[in-house]
């Protein structure tokens, strides 16, 4: 005859037995990973010696506030510019065509080698030797290459897309919009003046006796 009951006596865990069990489990874990733990402890010792553990501890404890400070600082200082420049350099590197660049670099290297071997006053100087050098096919080829580079530098690249951050793009867009608005607002007064003039011209008619 079981009467309805809602009373439940929770099992009281023996704290000593539980403690013992947990110690045993820990011991097994330690033994299973003995070698890795020794390595880890050695690293931890060094980190501790360098105060790094204390720094990490403090940093993690205050992580929310620190994150906010860092982010605000990055936003408000040149740090973001540095990061952006770094990314731009990466993009620039990606833009270079190494196949084209490589022969140029080899040629430049040759030139450096020759320049390195050149001794001041070792050869007879003067305009004559300069003029005779102009006949040298290597000098002619080198000059041609230099001319191509100079040509390239002179090309108009204003139509090419500039690498900008999202915010800069928005700012450009805003400027463009403002420009358009100004253009509209510049034309608007004329329109109002015309309407205003027409209304003024009509005033005498309003008071005209019938």
């Amino acid at each position, binding site marked *: *005859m*079981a*009467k*309805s*009951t*809602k*009373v*439940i*006596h*929770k*099992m009281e865990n023996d704290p000593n037995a539980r403690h013992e069990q947990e110690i045993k489990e820990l011991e097994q874990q330690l033994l299973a990973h003995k070698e890795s733990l020794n390595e880890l402890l050695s690293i931890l010792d060094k980190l501790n010696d360098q105060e790094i553990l204390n720094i990490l501890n403090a940093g993690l404890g205050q992580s*929310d506030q620190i*994150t*906010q400070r860092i*982010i*605000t600082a*990055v*936003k408000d200082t040149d740090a*973001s510019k540095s*990061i*952006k420049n770094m*990314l*731009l350099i990466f*993009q620039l590197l990606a833009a270079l065509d190494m196949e084209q660049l490589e022969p140029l670099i080899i040629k430049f290297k040759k030139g450096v080698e020759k320049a390195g071997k050149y001794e001041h006053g070792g050869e007879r100087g003067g305009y004559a030797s300069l003029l005779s050098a102009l006949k040298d096919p290597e000098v002619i080829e080198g000059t041609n290459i230099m001319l191509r580079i100079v040509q390239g530098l002179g090309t108009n690249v204003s139509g090419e897309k500039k*690498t*900008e*951050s*999202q*915010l800069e*793009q*928005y700012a450009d*867009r*805003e400027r463009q919009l403002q420009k358009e608005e100004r253009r509209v607002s510049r034309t608007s007064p004329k329109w109002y003046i015309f309407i205003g003039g027409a209304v003024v011209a009509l005033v005498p008619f309003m008071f005209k006796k019938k």
Partner: protein
Amino acid sequence: MSMPFDIMLNGKIQRVEEQETIRGYLEKQNIEPPSLCYHPSLGALETCDTCIVKVNGEFERACSTQLKPGDVIETETMDDEVHEAQLIAMDRVLGNHELYCTVCDFNNGNCEIHNTVKEMKIEHQETPHTSKDSGVQWNAFYRYDPDQCILCGRCVEACQDLQVNETLLIDWNLERPRVIWDNDTTIDESSCVNCGHCATVCPCNAMMEVGMEGEAGFLTNMAKETFRPMVDVTKEVETGYGSLMTVSDVEAQMREERIEKTKTVCTYCGVGCSFDIWTKDREILKIEPSVDAPANGVSTCVKGKFGWDFVNSEERLTKPLIREGDAFRETEWEEVLDLIEGKFKEKMAQQGSDALGFISSSKCTNEESYLMQKLARGVIGTNNIDNCSRYCQSPATMGLWRTVGYGGDSGSINDDIAQAELIITVGSNTAESHPVLATRVKRAQKLHGQKVIVADLRKHELADRADLFVQPAPGSDLVWLSAVTKYIIDQGWQDDDFLEQHVNDVEAYMESLDKYTLAYAEEVTGMTRDELIEIATSIHEAKTTSILWAMGVTQHGGGSDTSTAISNLLLITGNYMKQGAGAYPLRGHNNVQGASDFGSMPDRFPGYQFVTDDEVRHRFEKSWDTELSVEPGLNNHEMVDAIHEGKLEVLYLKGEDMGIVDSNINYVQSAFEKLDFFVVQDIFFSKTCEYADVVLPASPSLEKDGTFVNTERRFQRLYKALNPLGESKPDWQIIKEIANRLDAEWHYDHPGEIMDEAASLTPMFAGVSYDRLEGYDSLQWPVAADGTDTPLLFEKEFPLPEGKARLWPVEWTKPIDFGDEYDLHVNNGRILEHFHEGNMTYKSEAITGKTPGVFLEVSPELAKERGVEDGTKVRLLSPYGKVKVSCIVTDRVSGNQLYLPMNTAGEGAINYLTSSHADKDTDTPAYKEVSVKMEVLEPKGESPLTKMNHRYGNPQPQIGVGVEKKWARSDYVFPGDIVKGRRSYK
């Protein structure tokens, strides 16, 4: 089907086999244009413009343009103009959505904006992102951030035309359009039912489950004041989206390590919604439905989407309990199994096996149902095994066994119910009890002209939407169904060919209908002649009719007969053996179908094979290596009687709160008190547990593998998402351990092995195996050995003699008369938000916040007469008991009808009022035959239903998202026109 035709695609002639949209065709060719508003479950919305292609030289949206013979389609052009148009569209999207992917909780590899930006190789945007200057909308289920919303309208389409709750709109008249709820109110004050469709279909983080917020990402839980500067810094340093995408992709990949995505099947109603559940350790982040889910697609209701907190509830049982006097104490499994072993063996030796009874659960898996009946039959030696479908669906099954041979739905939710020309629901509160199934009916009615007739006492949501709503007197459905059938025959509208080829006993049945004249039906049911004729005419005019019914039919003294009458009507009109037609008893629990399918019945083995059939029994005896009882056992109700009679002394019950859900619970509870030994296995300490000698902590569906069978006879696998909490165990493991204590020597290591054994013994499930149910794969029984399943249950014949169905004459059983003293009829059933007595759904703070407890619905006229208002506390008295409950006044009920939802185990529990009166053929309690008298206890009080409940909302029906209003705005120009303009300028 249209004839194949040729088109030109990017300069090549291609053959098109069927009529379809350009987008659909391109997808098959693996040339998928970008698309953000398109969703396979919603179709073309035409809001995002990103799928623009050129058709015969003109720019068109690929999602909505139908392919025509000879079309010239260009997805790429020499001068990139298609890409340019798509870019313009995408740029507008980005103007509405800020890309901060790495610190976004939606960055899980499935953000469609993120992925489109990547695929289109977009590095910059022209249109700056700007705020819509409207705050974030938030409730306890989900949130809407207008500043992330791209106005694709998927959420609106899902709300308006898939869920058909009609709450969400986009207000295109605002300067900055955004999604609004009802008439631009808050989510909580709107008609929103929190079904979660909007969050499921949102392509980004605009509409998102709150469970994801600050949880999904590694960097998303940062302090609010840090978030904005962080986003600004990211933008400052980002020189293109490429690097942003890479970093966030890496972060998304890292999330895969800690967020588990596990496919499961919903454990509430019988629709059988399946979806992925996202978990982080034990934390549930969200439910992610899938278009691959066979029953529900992307649909869910509030319980399936948000009702999972119970799994981590502190109230879960985590250790076995043993009764000591008037209290329980926690114990270890060893001790409790020792006790069960001793008591079971002792009782079997002293009283014989039939002194023990076993009750299985429709919440548990098929494998667990199988093991429970195997334990009872094969180990203990008794057929005293039943399950809780006895409380609901046995009469429907009986009606179908009699007439068509199989006790299951004739077809499928999407292929048949949604395709029927006419839907008739009888005694079914479909929109609240089977919400996702109801969405298919509501959608078919709203978009495709499906006709809906509802017969019910109460004007619930589907009744309100019905083309014809009739209110027959309680318990009189058999009469009007038979009268409609007779009228059809009288008009000569019966399907003679079908009857001749496929049906037996036609003449005898037709003769039995003589008394069911329209006049008789009018008198008994209170329906009008016109209503009866309209129903008959509607069936006659529709090519296909599906009839859906539930507890309003079955839980009566003549529940089996009324179910039979439904099937008779369908047979007479030839509404079987074709798509869109048939009988659909809507199963109430996730595995009501499977619990009986797998043999938890007193007279049948798995697959409805009789225990009295020698050939069948010998097959099981050979496999189980034991002798089995030939005598059918006791059903649930007979077990309760046997306890009172002292014949049954030990009961093992799992996953069923029989002490509150059975009828006449005072009688049931007093039986429990008489038991010699009572084992209850549950996830919570239920009302029934209070009477137990031993309580075993079980694991819910998320903590185990297994299969369920839904209302469509569909097998679906669920996978273990979490480890069992504390020392709880999956039911199949507990049953195995008990069996092995009784020398069974079972060696199952995984439920898949149990299924293999069950399938090998059950011809109906011969081809069912876990391999064939991988992921979202499913099978509808019967399943042949080669794995061929049966979506349409009857195609060539019926599983009855001569392969023919049979018409089965039925008589009306008058509902019990409580006398004039008990002047109010109490209708009872489910509500949308809580499941049954609520031991799972009340654990959800969000759901309980909206619907804190039970309430009694009183009609305005009765309220006026008795001085009742919202919050009035009343006592209801029946001859069997009494309840106390607070009222709300609503026109969902009329006259002397009351509606008392079953969502409490407290002093308002309906079964304190119900009797032991039951269906005469199946013993299913006649829960719906309750009359009471009402006393006002406290005239004034707080309303039991908060005004934040969706019932007080103000839905705004419309079809679609209203994209025409967007196109009519002065600031809208079709991207194709812009490109054309630019080209002509050049």
